[in-house]
């Protein structure tokens, strides 16, 4: 009866593995899935200086149509965003998971100045377009397709988290003397009553085009 006992051993093994896997899946599935947050190493270096890859000359203004961040698998269309009544940047409709927006009254990505792109980290159903933004690292590439047919390529300088209370408006939205880009989503911890406590902000500057 060797054959039968071998069969029993296999079944016993499968049972044990299934038991462990099931328990693990149920346990980790019930945990919360907070979006990744940047580490201190991704913040602006204290020594100052722009560092990183050298910038390239600015492009003429042209509205952007699409943003790609290969390192975190982002490839999303862009819609124009205005300001809310309180003066904060409006956001894309939450219903569409893979949609980001750009601040239409501001600088176009590639032009000299600070262009602003924003998108949701999640919506009621689950993760959205910029869920993994907090996992982005320095020197990663961000590509923006522009309506004039060119592609503006930016390199990440820093990934920061700011609380909503003391949001550094000037640092995030202020004018720049070279073509820069900010990519913004929610982050910085979550509370049931007030939602996400702040924003993850990616700082990048233009390093190429094609």
């Amino acid at each position: 009866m060797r054959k039968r006992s071998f069969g029993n051993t296999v079944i016993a093994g499968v049972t044990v593995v299934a038991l462990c896997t099931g328990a693990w899946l149920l346990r980790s599935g019930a945990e919360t899935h907070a979006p990744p947050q940047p580490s201190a190493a991704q913040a602006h270096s204290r020594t100052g200086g722009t560092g990183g890859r050298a910038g390239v000359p600015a492009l003429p203004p042209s509205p952007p149509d699409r943003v790609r961040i290969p390192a975190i698998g982002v490839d999303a269309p862009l819609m124009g965003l205005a300001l809310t009544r309180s003066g904060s940047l409006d956001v894309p409709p939450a219903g569409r998971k893979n949609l980001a927006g750009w601040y239409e009254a501001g600088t176009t990505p590639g032009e000299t100045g600070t262009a602003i792109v924003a998108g949701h980290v999640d919506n009621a159903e689950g993760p959205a377009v910029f869920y993994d933004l907090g996992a982005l690292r320095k020197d990663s590439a961000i590509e923006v397709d522009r309506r004039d047919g060119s592609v503006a390529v930016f390199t990440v300088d820093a990934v920061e988290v700011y609380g909503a209370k003391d949001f550094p408006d000037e640092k995030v939205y202020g004018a720049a003397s070279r073509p820069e880009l900010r990519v913004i989503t929610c982050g910085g911890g979550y509370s049931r009553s007030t939602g996400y406590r702040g924003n993850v902000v990616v700082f990048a500057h233009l390093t190429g085009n094609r």
Partner: protein
Amino acid sequence: MRPTARLLTGSALVVAAGLVCAPAYAGDSDGLEIFPSSAVPGGQVTVNTAACGDGGTAQGDASAVGADSFTLAPSTHEGDAIGQFRVPSSAQPGTYEIAATCAEGGRRVTGDLVVTLTSQRQPVHPRGSVKTGVGGALGPDPVQTAAGVAALAVAAAGGTWLLHRRARGDGI
């Protein structure tokens, strides 16, 4: 040679426009969209329209502001034809009508371009944080939970089978 040259220019524009991907707002107007709507002399202006249908081209006319005619080539975005021109450095401040005429059907669409001597695009910066999440990603993962239940069901079936064999004295 003229038509050939034009054809070649046209193809180059098509290739260039092929890189443009779909914007989110699918042709929200049938007019001529002009960006920026306010430009300085010497500035470059991008126009697009959905009026010429899928893959339609158009002839752009910016002669009102003294610019050369230009071509609007189809882009990958649903039916939007896109073209560019440069505002002559001699252009005077004012509002000018920019037009585009579809190659097929001859439909004409227009939009207004404002020329100013100093750049009026001094944007108001947004203020404060951005509301880009509701916490929907934070709940339990239903897929993982379902997989866990399925794995436990397999374990239960295996256990039952083994107990059954043992009860029958099949040796384990």
